[in-house]
Structure formats: structure tokens, C-alpha cells
């Protein structure tokens, strides 16, 4: 394939710029291979996070020619001819070069109540599940937490709605909630969390998260929109609201309100 020019963003939280490198590209190489080659031959101080090089650890997320992608899964022969630009994810604070601080995502993750199954169905302490139940939530469990969906989501990327008073949980955590909320054994109601803490209403379903997902999870169609519909059931549908009121009056329903969590302060942020 010959020589290719790479324009790589170099810098840290105080600022930075693109620098050009020329790399020898051979057949079968992926972008991460080229980055390693540049590290080895031209820029030993180039920071890059990676681990498995097989599209399963979700570490090497970056923006290649402006598209959020995994560097280890982007073959060089899939890119158009000409210089290749390489940037860190733009939604998160820079640590150095291609490495960003994604710890905000872990703070959001802590807001979500964990799986709590119903009592076992059988005396031996087990449950029975049909395959179709497993199939639906299994799709969401494919997530490798590369945070490309969080990065491309314009609510987090352009509007930076990451801190109170109004935060958006982002597609990755909508998918995590979907995996729990649609689980047939789970008993926790996370709809108040979805509506008032993770603010699912801030998603305007422009589907960029689905477009960039390397695991091809149908984040919007199978996760976010079904959750939005459940929020409509619980909060916005006037007929269901009336049915609930009648149910409450007749004592058919038990209302159990649980306190909502709040986003903890970033321990590394300056006071």
C-alpha cells in the first residue's frame, strides 16, 4: 500500500495540535498497527490506550477521519486514499494525545441499581427462562464499553450535559438499564431513574450511537426507544394514568417510591 500521511492530535488538557507522521502501510494493517509503528519509530511519547487488539476490550476508541471508531478494527484499506486524521474522543477531557478521561461514565454507572431477581421459581432455588427472553437482553450484554456511543452522542459531545442540574446518562447507560429493566427476573423499577436522573427525554433519537457501535447493538431501536415507551406508559399516557389512579383508589396497586440517586462529585475535579 505504500506510504501514508497520518495527522495525529498531540497535546494534553492545556491544549495541543495536529502533527504529521509518514508511515509505511502494508496489507492487512489496522490503524492501531500504524500508531504502534509511529510509536516505535518516530514518536515514542505518543500516548494511546489499547489492550486486546481484537475489538473486545473497548480501549482504543478514537476518531479516524472524523468518524468515532475502534483503531484496532479499522483496516487501513477501508479508508479513502489520502492523509488520515486521528484524534481522541471529543466528548471527554483529554489526558494526553489519544487518551481521554472516561471516568465520568463510571460515575454514571454507579447510579444504576444492580440486578435484583425475584424469588426462585422452584424449590431447588432456580428459575426457568425461555430462549426468547434471553435473546432480547443478550444483545445489550454485547456492549464492550468502548464509549464510542457516548462520544458521538451530540447531547454529551456538543452540549456537554454531564453535570447537574441536568445530566444525560448517554446511550451506553440506556443500554445497561434496558438489559436490567427488560430482564424477566429483575424486580427493580428504574423508570424514575431513567426519567428524572438519566433524563432519557434528552435523547432526540438521531441514532448516531447505533451507527458507531462496533458490536452492532441496535441501541436506539431496541434499547432507548422501548425505554422511552415505558416512560410514556408510566408518566405521559393519560389513559394509563387514569387506570393507575383508579387502581390506587381501589387498592389494587401498591405505590412504593424509592429515593433517587444523585451524581457524585468527580473526585479528581478541582474544587
Amino acid at each position, binding site marked *: 500500500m505504500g506510504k501514508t500521511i497520518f495527522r495525529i492530535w498531540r497535546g494534553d488538557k492545556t491544549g495541543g*495540535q495536529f502533527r504529521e507522521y509518514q508511515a509505511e502501510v502494508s496489507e492487512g494493517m489496522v490503524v492501531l498497527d500504524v500508531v504502534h509503528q509511529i510509536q516505535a519509530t518516530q514518536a515514542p511519547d505518543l500516548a494511546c490506550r489499547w489492550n486486546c487488539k481484537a475489538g473486545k476490550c473497548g480501549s482504543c476508541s478514537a476518531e479516524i477521519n472524523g468518524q468515532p471508531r475502534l483503531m484496532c478494527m479499522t483496516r487501513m484499506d477501508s479508508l479513502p486514499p489520502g492523509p488520515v486524521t486521528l484524534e481522541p474522543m471529543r466528548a471527554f477531557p483529554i489526558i494526553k494525545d489519544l487518551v481521554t478521561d472516561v471516568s465520568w461514565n463510571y460515575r454514571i454507572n454507579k447510579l444504576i441499581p444492580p440486578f435484583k431477581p425475584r424469588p426462585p421459581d422452584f424449590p431447588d432455588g432456580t428459575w426457568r427462562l425461555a430462549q426468547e427472553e434471553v435473546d432480547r437482553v443478550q444483545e445489550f450484554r454485547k456492549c464492550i464499553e468502548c464509549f464510542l456511543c457516548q462520544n458521538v452522542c451530540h447531547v454529551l459531545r456538543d452540549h456537554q450535559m454531564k453535570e447537574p442540574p441536568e445530566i444525560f446518562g448517554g446511550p451506553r447507560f440506556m443500554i445497561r438499564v434496558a438489559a436490567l429493566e427488560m430482564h424477566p427476573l429483575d424486580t427493580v423499577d428504574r423508570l424514575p431513574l431513567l426519567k428524572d436522573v438519566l*433524563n432519557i427525554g434528552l435523547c432526540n433519537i438521531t441514532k448516531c450511537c447505533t451507527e458507531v457501535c462496533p458490536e452492532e447493538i441496535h441501541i436506539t431501536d431496541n434499547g432507548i426507544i422501548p425505554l422511552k*415507551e415505558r416512560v410514556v406508559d408510566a408518566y405521559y399516557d393519560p389513559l394509563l394514568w387514569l387506570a393507575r389512579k383508579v387502581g390506587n383508589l381501589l387498592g389494587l396497586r401498591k405505590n412504593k417510591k424509592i429515593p433517587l440517586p444523585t451524581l457524585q462529585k468527580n473526585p479528581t475535579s478541582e474544587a
Partner: protein
Amino acid sequence: MSAVATPSGILRRRYGETMRRDAWWLGPALTVVGLTAFVLYATFIVLAVPGYFEIRLNKQDFFAPNNPAVAPYLAPFHAPLLFDEQSPHAWFQQARPSWWPTWLPFNAALLILIFPAGFRFTCYYYRKAYYRAFWQDPPACAVGEPRTSYWGENHWPLLIQNVHRYFLYAAIVFLVFLWHDALLAFRWPVLDQNTGVPTGSYTFGIGLGTIIMLINVYLLTSYTLGCHSFRHLIGGRKNCFSCPVNGMLKPTVSYRLWRFSTHLNERHQLWAWLSLFSVGFTDLYIRLCAAGIWHDLRIW
């Protein structure tokens, strides 16, 4: 290359700024062209074409007295036809409702178009399409936006998008009417051989318009039954499709319906565009035949 310096790293991109090298603008541009053309056509029909929703004997003067329909078609923008003095499709055989102000021009399409329009306006696919193409929020993935402020669908006025399921209920009712109209398009009036006036009896027949109406209602059905709200209401709302009942695991009817709707939902964007085009074309075809500009081909 340009250098940037901010406390947190890289600057927010300006409107339209991106490192993408593909034709990211093409999709939004085509959406603008397609939706604008449809809205302009629908507006023209509502404001300027109260008649020509069926093919009548006198093609020059649609509302002339004793001007019977000579073909069984009904243009979908006027379906269901609530008010008309002489159409066999009309629910009420009068020119306009009694409460309609006399100074206000009447078009029967005005009474019904809010329902299909509302269904499409609040549709999850079209929301994506027009938020991107018209509101530029965002113009495309990883492309800079024009505004810094953002409310999403968490506040008024876009909170109203949550009403989508009620437009779905209306759309399902409309589907029943449209299937009825499509099946009636096989029932042709028998015409007097000399005068061309309907004799009052009917016979089986197929015209090109019959096939167009049938394709149109098929596409509309595929679009409606693949709707995200429909998929939720018929099964997706459940956490458990086949929880053990008396120890048995058996997929329920709602699971099968949900699978069927999911199958359609996977191509919801395609159905949305095909049905939008087909409903516009079917309407145009019947109106042009009604005006005598095009001539319907009688196949059977």
C-alpha cells in the same frame, strides 16, 4: 494544522465543522428535498384542490350537479371522505358540515389530514430525519451544531412527542378505511354504453389505479405495524414473554406479534419513505385521472 488550547482539551466544533471526509451532508439534503416536496404537495391539495378526489363523468367541472363517479377510486388524502354531496364514498351526503363557517373555504381533507400528519410528525424515524435535516441537531454524526442550548424532548414543546401512540391508534383506524377503499377499487360501476353514465349496478374489475391503491395500502400497513409504539404496545412492554405458567414455558401470542412487528421495524426507515412516496403518488395519480390529464388503464 491549526492548534487549539482549552482547559479541557479540544474545542467544541463550530456549525458544520468536521473531520469527516465522506458525503455526510447527502442524507440530510435528500431528507429536506423529500419531506419539503411532500409537505408542499399536501399543502397545495388542502388549500387549492377541494375536489378531484375521484374520477367523475364530467372531468371539466368536478362539482357540477349530477356528476356521478365512473371509477371506484378514492384519493388517499381525502380518505375517509366525510362530506360530499354526491360521492358514493361520502359518509354524509352534504357539501360541508353545518358548523363550518360560510366564509371559510371547505376541503374535506382538512378534517382528517391532521391524523396521518401527526402520526408521521411524531414517528421515531421521522424525528431522527427532521431533527437532523431541518433542525441540524446534529446535522450528521460528529458534525458541529449551530446552537449551544438544548432541551431535547425533556421539556415543552417537544415533550408533546410522547403523544405518538395516540396518533398510532388513529393511523390504525385509517388503515381500516384505506383497506376498505382499496378493496372497493375492485367494484366498478357498470356504465351505459352510449352515455357513459353509471347504470346503478356494479361488476368486478381491475384498473391500474386498483393496483396502485393496493400497493399503497400494503406499504402503509408495513409502515404502521412496524411503528415503535405498536411494537411496544403489542408485546415489547412486557419483561417476560413466556414466564412459566404452571411450570410450562410457551411463547405467547404477544411474543409472536412482537416478533412480527420487530421484523417490520428493522426496515422502518424504508417503509416510512416508500409509504410516503406511495401515498403521494396514489393521490396524484387519481387526481390527474380525475382531471382528465392522465387516463386510467382498465386491465380487467
